[in-house]
């Protein structure tokens, strides 16, 4: 293991000599695709609004040590194992499941370079009440470091579970390039809460692959970040599957966060809903890009997508691009995006009741994303998030002081 600093592309090895044959071949094709295509540059459409150079040009050292921690204790029906261990002992069980080999850019980089990770396996027919909690952090290093957290979550048929992921860290020169793959069996349900409180560089990908009648509910809360690019994909592969992708992001200072969602309706009778809300102040930048693809034959699809943004300063920027591609008839789809400021008539109404202006602004600002925070189904996490969000929004302190 080398700890010298290299650019991300230079850190790709010339050959892959360890692990099962199938993995070597997945890694090799990922690396080849990357070398051929390169990492994104400012002309790459999917990175149009997000400066990728700090990621591409910087020389990073590997810093996986503190990358991934499972907080929760063991419970019946759930097996959590290290990916490295499974790859050594029963490699065949993972074949075809670490699937993001030739996908674009950073996920491919993770596939080529991850050294370990977790496989969370929920057996068929169980309901796990207490959430599984993962935290992603950093080793305390002063030089630029990169880690490649990799998580595979398998929820077998008819089971129900909840996963809470927290990405935390203070150091702005640290890069986390994470991949979480989720497999939902027939009629399986997963509530997935993902919190980005990491102030450093973050690139993340979540992909949920859903069989018939499964349900995936994601709430993503992003609280600032020097540079964050997050992609979430739900692939509705089995009839009757449904997903709900919700998100809230808050940017201030010179934060830059970029959320991309993709829902693929590949089977009939599936439903998807997306609600993303954002608040931008200071010199912050927020990007939302949402795509819904309805494949041929995915009849009786119902798909809704909404992105609303609150712009609180002249120097903040929001880019939003909702997008539908429908290749079949007999579907119900809607999408919409707004960027606006606080409503003066609402503000006036509150003030005529004696609410000081600053508190009225904070109330309306928090109300804007509260709907998303309220969808966090785990109360202790929701309560903590409310406090954290209030600490991040302009004058949020004023609300915290209200008895």
């Amino acid at each position, binding site marked *: 293991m080398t700890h010298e600093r290299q650019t991300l592309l230079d850190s790709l090895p010339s050959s892959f000599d360890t692990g099962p044959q199938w993995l070597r071949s997945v890694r090799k094709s990922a690396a080849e695709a990357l070398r051929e295509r390169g990492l994104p540059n400012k002309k790459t459409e999917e990175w149009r609004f997000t400066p990728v150079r700090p990621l591409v040009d910087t020389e990073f050292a590997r810093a996986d040590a503190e990358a991934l921690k499972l907080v929760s204790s063991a419970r019946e029906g759930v097996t959590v194992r290290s990916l490295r261990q499974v790859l050594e002992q029963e490699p065949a069980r993972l074949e075809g499941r670490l699937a993001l080999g030739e996908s674009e850019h950073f996920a491919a980089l993770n596939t080529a370079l991850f050294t370990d990770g977790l496989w969370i396996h929920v057996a068929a027919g169980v309901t796990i009440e207490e959430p599984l909690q993962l935290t992603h952090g950093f080793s305390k290093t002063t030089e630029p470091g990169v880690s490649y957290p990799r998580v595979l979550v398998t929820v077998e048929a008819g089971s129900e579970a909840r996963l809470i992921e927290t990405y935390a860290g203070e150091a702005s020169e640290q890069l986390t390039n994470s991949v979480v793959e989720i497999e939902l069996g027939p009629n399986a349900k997963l509530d997935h809460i993902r919190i980005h409180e990491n102030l450093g560089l973050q690139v993340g990908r979540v992909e949920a692959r859903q069989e018939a009648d499964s349900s995936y509910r994601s709430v993503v809360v992003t609280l600032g970040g020097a540079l964050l690019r997050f992609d979430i994909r739900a692939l509705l592969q089995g009839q009757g599957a449904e997903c709900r992708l919700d998100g809230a992001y808050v940017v201030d200072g010179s934060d830059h966060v970029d959320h991309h969602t993709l829902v693929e309706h590949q089977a009939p009778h599936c439903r998807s809903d997306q609600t993303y809300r954002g608040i931008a102040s200071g010199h912050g930048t927020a990007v939302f890009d949402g795509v819904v693809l309805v494949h041929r034959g995915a009849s009786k699809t119902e798909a809704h997508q909404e992105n609303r943004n609150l712009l609180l300063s002249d120097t903040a920027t929001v880019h939003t691009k909702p997008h539908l591609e429908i290749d079949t008839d007999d579907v119900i789809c809607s999408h919409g995006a707004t960027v606006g400021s606080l*409503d003066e008539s609402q503000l006036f*109404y*509150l003030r005529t009741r004696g609410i000081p202006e600053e508190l009225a602004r904070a109330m309306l600002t928090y109300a804007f994303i509260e709907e998303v925070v309220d969808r966090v189904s785990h109360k202790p996490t929701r309560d903590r998030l409310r406090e954290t969000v209030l600490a991040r929004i302009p004058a949020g302190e004023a609300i915290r002081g209200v008895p």
Partner: protein
Amino acid sequence: MLKIEDLHVEVDGKLILKGIDLEIQAGEVHAIMGPNGSGKSTLAYVLAGREGYEVTKGSVTYKGRDLLEMSPEARAAEGVFLGFQYPVAIPGVSNVYFLKAALNALRKHRGKDPLDAIDFMKLSKEKAALVQLPDELTKRSVNDGFSGGEKKRNEIYQMAMLEPSLAVLDETDSGLDIDALKVIADGLNTLRSPERAMLIITHYQRLLDYIVPDVVHVLIDGQIVRTGDKDLAKRLEAEGYAEVRDAIQP
């Protein structure tokens, strides 16, 4: 309590109020009647402190202080309340949550301790009953999905909670059926007191059948053209604004 002198107000460079003089004492109920576009709502907004209403001449003195110098929340703290003609919906902010914040801000200003959750809910139940506002609506987001009548009841419920010294009620009767009108009028009559003044702005006389005003003013084209007692309202209803206007400007 309130003294308006020679008040001139412009909105978007257009003169709307053209010299209003009006004086209201504590305990009095005044009605301002006038046709659409006469400047009634402008007067209400100026008293509450809305932005975009430029006072070009004249003054408004409230409890001996210059009202126009004060922010909307400072006016509320001093006891001014505006009942809106079209109360805005505020999704995500619950009625009781914001009212508790409002009431405790006012209590703080008045040197009183904040109400705790239990005392607040007790008070809320009592005041909601006054205008037959279902308890469930007090907990919903402010005016969100409320019917026209429910919004108006919510205004009077808030007024009852905040106990203002001066209530300016802008077309509180508009859009109400007769039953709802009676409920609201009963609520307002209960809130009449020797310490409290009310300025009821209305297009129609019918609310005044239930809340009998001490003084009635007729506002036409930005000016008060007539002032009288409750019989003036009845005359207006019978003869129409045109007659009154013609009588003034033959």
